């Protein structure tokens, strides 16, 4: 892989919380336009890796390079967001007292300074962009709703819509289908496909069925370390992965069945 096509690079990233090693020497390389799944059992450090990339958590050692040159670990969250790294947290986080349209309006790629925000006017193109986005996330009839009144799934889509209007080059999604019905999960999968066509995406996911729908590279983490990287088949065939993740899950299932 030539370094030109690499958009994001984590090099030997380690994170500690009060002495607890959450992530140890993690390496991750994301190519431009790639859709990557990050999987692993609970506590493997998947979310922490996303937190490091978007600046929420500062690593004790290691680097995160954006576009081969910009060191992200020294920047603040809002600066990283401005550079083009979007983050979606596990719980839907939209602005409940703003309308759906207003949520999209402030997310749109634009100058984020005070004066710019004070003077900002909606142009016709802006309005069209917001309406197109509204259509894409399937909320075209709910533009004037208070975002707090949307259902769980709708909130998730709104948040994805907000992220897309930010026009990030790298999108970090934390369990985008958690808590969704089958129908909602399917729709989110479609959204994800459209999103991944235009930008690089990292998805943390628990739902193996969901991951299998995409022919992409999978990175497996375990106890803060990189365990295996490859296609879904390769990963599933790997004995260690089966042991720590898939196998363990089966054991858990058996246990829960026997105790039920």
């Amino acid at each position, binding site marked *: 892989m030539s370094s030109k096509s690499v958009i994001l690079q984590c090099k030997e990233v380690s994170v500690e919380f009060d002495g607890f090693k959450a992530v140890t020497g993690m390496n991750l390389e994301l190519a431009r336009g790639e859709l990557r799944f990050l999987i692993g059992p609970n506590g493997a450090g998947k979310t922490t890796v996303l937190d490091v990339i978007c600046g929420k958590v500062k690593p004790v050692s290691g680097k995160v390079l954006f576009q081969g040159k910009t060191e992200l670990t020294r920047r603040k969250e809002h600066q990283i*967001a401005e550079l083009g790294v979007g983050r979606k947290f596990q719980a839907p986080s939209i602005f409940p*007292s703003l*309308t759906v349209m207003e949520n999209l309006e402030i997310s749109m790629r634009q100058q984020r300074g005070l004066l710019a925000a004070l003077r900002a006017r909606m142009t016709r193109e802006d309005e069209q962009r917001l309406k197109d986005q509204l259509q894409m996330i399937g909320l075209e009839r709910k533009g004037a709703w208070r975002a707090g009144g949307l259902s769980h799934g709708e909130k998730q889509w709104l948040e994805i819509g907000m992220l897309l209007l930010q026009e990030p080059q790298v999108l970090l999604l934390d369990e985008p289908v958690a808590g969704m019905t089958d129908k909602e999960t399917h729709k989110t999968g479609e959204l994800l496909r459209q999103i991944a066509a235009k930008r690089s995406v990292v998805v943390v996911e628990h739902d193996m069925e969901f991951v299998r729908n995409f022919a992409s590279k999978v990175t497996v983490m375990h106890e803060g370390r990189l365990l295996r990287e490859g296609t879904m088949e390769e990963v599933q065939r790997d004995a260690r992965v089966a042991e720590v993740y898939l196998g363990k899950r089966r054991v858990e299932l058996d246990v829960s069945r026997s105790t039920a």
Partner: protein
Amino acid sequence: MRERSWTAQRIYMLIGYAAAAAALFCAPLYLSDFRLNLLAKFLAFAIVALGLDLIWGYTGILSLGHGVFFGLGAYAMAMYLKLEASGDKLPDFMGWSGLANLPWFWKPFESFWFAAAAGIAIPALLALVLGFFTFRNRIKGVYFTILTQALVIITTTLFIGQQALTGGTNGLTGFTTVLGYPIGSPDTKRMLFWVTGAVLLAVYLMCRYIVGSRLGKVLRAIRDGENRARFIGYNPASYQIFVFVVSAALAGIGGMLFVLHVGIISPSMMAIVPSIEMVLWVAIGGRGTLIGAAAGAVLLNYAKSSFSESYPDAWLFFLGGLFVVVVVFLPKGAVGLLGKIKWPKRRRTGHEQQVRHSAV
């Protein structure tokens, strides 16, 4: 959404605003000089309330220290008035404290315009410094509120302690003229009333502009989820500092006008109880709506003065009780009640949901 149709609600609202403005500016026709002066004072308070609403109602930051900003504005104007009243001589209280010369920082206050500018700039600057160190370090919620209370205690202690420079517990009073006009004459009072009304109107329009702009939406977004706003790329600290500075400046303006109407300012008027009372005007009137905050300030102070005329001791109990009722039953304040009226052909904006304010 920029569509603005002439719905019935909008027309009623505009008529209401026009009527209220007309009634306000004609007040000298039907109010006695005494009542007019009271109303002028309430309008000055309404300016403070608008500023508090920007920071608390719209941005979710509770300041219990706005008495200080109000007081700093009031003292700036009072210093000018005191110097004008003293003529060539030293202000009386300085003589009593054994001061022989006018302190250097009093000198520029001989100019009305310097005093007026300082009455805005000093509170704004103090808010800028305080905001810079708190918001940039992500101090928020109750911790910020406690800091603002500390600010009140420090400031009042300082003003009481420096008797020779500030007039101590008694504050500054004994004014005679403003810009050469006798400050107590009915003509001057009427003029001051109109000035206050005009300033209130200008401040109201400015606040509406801020709240309606995209900046206003970002402020509400920060109230709803500061972290989320950060990950969109906004720096919440700069927005919080901005709104804190604006609201401190507005409190300063209110303070200056207050002194012109009342003729005295003392440390007790910028202490903890008045600071909390200011927040109550906004809470009871309806935070998150500008008209609610302004009306809350005027109506509560009207109630206070008429109540205290007959039952001086009962006022605080009444105010406390009212606050409890509003917090428990009307989280959006008195204006929230009006919002429940069903207007004909009202544009439906989804569910009638309660806006979840972060409580502190």
